[in-house]
């Protein structure tokens, strides 16, 4: 983590308030830092993490050499990534619900046009002579249509 501070030894925060005093955006880098360490993105958002202009002054004044700007930048990118994931999840769930609904509608439409299941109907027994008569009628009808 000690990249931005350029100092080899980072020490625990002494709560001196220097970073708050120098911040041109009137943020509280100290509370934002502790919120991000706790993975508490809700309070980081309340502390206006997005407003940080990344001027580096908090890092320069920090007596404990805490890489505050690394943390704030990471927090901003992580917050944006989580927001994108949330939007994508909402779109996915909406699409899934739409597909389920459309499938149900198609199935309902098919049920409407389909005849009832044959097994539920009594089987029809007809004689060979009736079949021959039906075929003769059909052929006569076709001859009338296509003379």
């Amino acid at each position: 983590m000690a990249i931005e501070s350029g100092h080899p030894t980072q020490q625990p925060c002494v709560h001196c308030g220097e970073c708050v005093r120098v911040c041109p955006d009137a943020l509280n880098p100290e509370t934002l830092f502790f919120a991000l360490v706790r993975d508490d993105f809700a309070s980081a958002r309340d502390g206006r993490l997005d407003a940080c202009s990344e001027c580096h002054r908090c890092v320069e004044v920090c007596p404990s050499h805490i890489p505050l700007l690394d943390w704030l930048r990471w927090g901003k990118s992580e917050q944006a990534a989580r927001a994108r994931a949330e939007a994508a999840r909402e779109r996915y769930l909406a699409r899934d619900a739409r597909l389920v609904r459309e499938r149900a509608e198609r199935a309902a439409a098919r049920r409407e046009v389909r005849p009832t299941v044959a097994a539920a109907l009594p089987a029809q027994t007809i004689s060979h002579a009736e079949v021959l008569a039906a075929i003769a009628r059909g052929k006569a009808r076709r001859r009338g249509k296509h003379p």
Partner: protein
Amino acid sequence: MNTGRARWLVRTAWIVGIVLFCIVWPGLEYPNFDIEPQERAKAFLQLLLLHGSWLLWPLLVQSAVKAWRRFREHRTWRGTGATALAVVCVLLCYARFVEPNELVVRRTVIPAPIDLNIAVVADIHVGIYTRPAKLAQVVDRLNAMHVDLVLFAGDLTYDPPKNLAAALAPLWRLNKPMYAVLGNHDVELPGPPLANKIHRVLAGSPVHFIEHRVIDFPSFRLAGLYDWWSARDDTAFLKALPHDKPLLVLMHQPHSLRALRGVDFALAMAGHTHGGQVYLPWLTDEVFLLTRDERYVGGYYDTPTGKLFVTTGVGVTGVPLRFNDPPVIDVLELRKHGH
């Protein structure tokens, strides 16, 4: 003409041939067929296989000429490779252009409680691969036969033409009634929703559909079942029939035999398998058993449930090839005192 120019001409001819037979011809025919949206690529590939296979003939000539030249130059390995290619071409040409165009009549004597001659046809699969001309050939052959009963065991269509009435028109020329059931390709398994359309187009024709019906003949009864995959049938109506006459059952898939346990029937007839289309002794039977759990690939079987005849059908699906398994009209000679 020098060699370089000849080679250039041959290559150009190949490119022109591939474009014509694999793109232009399939593209021109494609709009004539009734294809499901999700099957479009497959249907085009099938048209490509059907027409592109004409290029096997020039490939055969070219590989034969090449083999002759290489052997004359004493380049044995090259010559052997070209010969192998030529042999493969000969086999494919036979399976594509010779055997599917045959139509054999095969007689089988089956011991039964009545004397009856039955012609069984199945799996005509009118569509991309099988054109109405083949249907007309089957109809002409059936019209010339002297049989008591003509049965059609399902699968009239496969990626059917948009004008189904015109494609099935040859069936109106039948001079005897043909009792039929629908097959899996006629009831969207897979395929477009056709069952009602087929029934409507053939209403009043000599083709009479008998799914879930019993036809009462003077000396026997004939019953039809729905396709096994459509799971629409319940054979209770067969169990309820009186036992005074022998019962013949027409179905599409040999699997339907499982629904006939406990039914008193003299003979069940099915199609669906095409006998594998490419029939290699033992191997095809094993493949059917492993991949489809199907013991009854083609022919007559005296099974524990009852007597079953499976016809190997007329048409093709998947690839337009038939080998050692020609299109067939099966004539079953039911005899009281068998053989």
